């Protein structure tokens, strides 16, 4: 089984995040594998261990992303690919990421491609489905269970807190939801061997991609931290007065109506 996992390096939202000048300060921020991608890596390793084959983890980004790839290798992935866009592109959006990944994957004869359901930074959940669309293969998002029997894949997916059971055929792209598995800690021998596993670095040129073809189609207008939570207010008095007050507050204070 030829398995690929799409991995993103993100900042750790459990650590302190500082925004200055419309950008997240990278100094002092902690970077991690996007937690949903960790489920994807774990699932890929389990599928490989059961079915045989090879797990390749792929990421887009700069040199710094090597750390996250090495962690995936330490967990048990076999190979890693870093598509380094640092020099070619200032900005990537879901469109550019999906295009580049699909160009990389199109001749790889992948049986199974896994990714996280969303990245905890951008949170669009678009890259996985877009890649599948470009490759012309099936995809199922937010899965919580995966069973492979020959070419047939039985899947349980999370649908707004409920479960949907469905069947699909390989080749297939799935995105992982929390609950799919419990990602393992990298083992010490895994960590010691991670450096010796192959990590290939590619640039857009290597994939015959022209910078103009992957120009971001969206622009980021502003980045800001969520407003500090303040204590709620309980309205008092007659019900009709409360409704009036609520409407006027929604209008004048919250400015939503």
């Amino acid at each position, binding site marked *: 089984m030829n398995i690929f996992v799409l991995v993103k390096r993100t900042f750790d939202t459990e650590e302190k995040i500082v925004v200055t000048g419309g950008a997240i300060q990278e100094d002092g921020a902690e970077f991690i594998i996007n937690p949903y991608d960790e489920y994807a890596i774990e699932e890929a390793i389990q599928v490989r261990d059961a079915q045989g084959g090879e797990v390749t983890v792929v990421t887009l980004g700069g040199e710094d992303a090597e750390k996250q790839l090495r962690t995936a290798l330490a967990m048990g992935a076999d190979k890693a690919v870093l598509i380094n866009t640092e020099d070619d592109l200032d900005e990537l959006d879901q469109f550019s990421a999906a295009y580049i990944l699909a160009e990389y994957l199109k001749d790889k004869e992948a049986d199974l491609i896994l990714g996280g359901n969303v990245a905890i930074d951008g949170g669009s959940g678009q890259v996985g489905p877009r890649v599948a669309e470009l490759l012309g293969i099936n995809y199922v998002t937010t899965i919580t269970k995966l069973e492979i029997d020959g070419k047939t894949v039985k899947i349980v997916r999370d649908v707004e807190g409920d479960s949907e059971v469905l069947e699909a055929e390989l080749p297939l792209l799935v995105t992982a939801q929390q609950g799919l598995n419990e990602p393992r800690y990298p*083992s*010490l*021998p895994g960590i010691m061997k991670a450096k010796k596993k192959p990590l290939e670095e590619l640039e857009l040129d290597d994939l015959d991609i022209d910078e103009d073809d992957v120009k971001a189609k969206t622009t980021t207008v502003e980045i800001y931290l969520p407003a500090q939570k303040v204590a709620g207010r309980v309205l008092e008095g007659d019900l009709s007065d409360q409704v009036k007050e609520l409407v006027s507050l929604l209008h004048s204070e919250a400015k939503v109506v």
Partner: protein
Amino acid sequence: MNFDLTSEQQMIRKTMKEFADEVVAPGAIERDRTKAFPKEIFKQLADMGMMGLPFEEEYGGAGADTTSFAIVTEELSRACASTGITYSAHISLGGAPLHLFGTKEQKEKYLTPICTGESFGAFGLTEPNAGSDAGGTETQAKEDGQDFVINGSKVYITNASYAKHLALTAITDIKDGKKEISAIIVPTDAEGFTVLDRYEKMGLNASNTTELILENVRVPQENLLGKKGNGFRQFLVTLDGGRIGIAAMAVGIAQAAFERALSYSKERKQFGQTLSSFQVTQFKLADMAMKIELARNMVYKASWLKDEGKPFTKEAAMAKLYASEIAMEIADQAIQIHGGYGYMKEYEVERYMRDAKLLEIGEGTSEVQRMVIARQIGC
């Protein structure tokens, strides 16, 4: 000069930090109360390949360096010092003498189960009248045909209830009125070997501390570890490495106490201000951070010297002495910052102080560390 951790060391730190926070920390208060040995945690550590960290791969180890060992010990101790000391003793007292002085056969037979986690590592040196003063050793091993017959007792032995075998020191001869001390590997299930787990301790309650009683315990002479008569010298070498473990534990406890104190002082308000806005608290926290940084640097330096094959006796003693004393101080100050809450078990800082105290005593008291340093600087 280079102060960066290697990429492996960084990954080990990150993995162990997560493991300590997610797996080790949650039950620490409860284990302190019930004195339950953290068996499940060690099963997971064994699955992660951590139990044979610095030993050769051919015996099931991972071939990692001493700095990595210090990192793992620090992170475990930050969450639960009982888990930390169990790990530290397992590696640096249980595994290390076999690794350093064992024959190939002995390593295959005794080091491998330590690396896989099938057996915990333990080490029998201290006796009711002997610790750093080896001359007080009374346990005797008499040659009898092909065997040694061992009689005596050991005290304060970590991990022995969970060890399948351990190395211990015994008098094998008396030459010109001087005791000849050798190290011998003894299976804990040998006839006449009793392990008693009945101490009531001040802290480190979830770690296993035992008395060993040996009554006519018979082991083949091939169980001699290293050279006959070299037992004490071998143990001095072993203890040098062990001190790095104790020092790393101390850094972990100090770090935990500091983190608690820092976060509490940012939340707790008195006289309309958080404690952290009072200069008196800021100075305490600044001192804590500084001392931890210094202690950790010393631990890393001693580890680095050891890995480079350079002498590290003095540095290991300095690291152990300094780190254990600042751990005690910082735990004390962390309680002070917490006020009455700090005296309550729920806030954990009181446990740090009880646990830290052992570090000024075990593997050579602070006074013995000063003796070692004094000897090293030419006194």
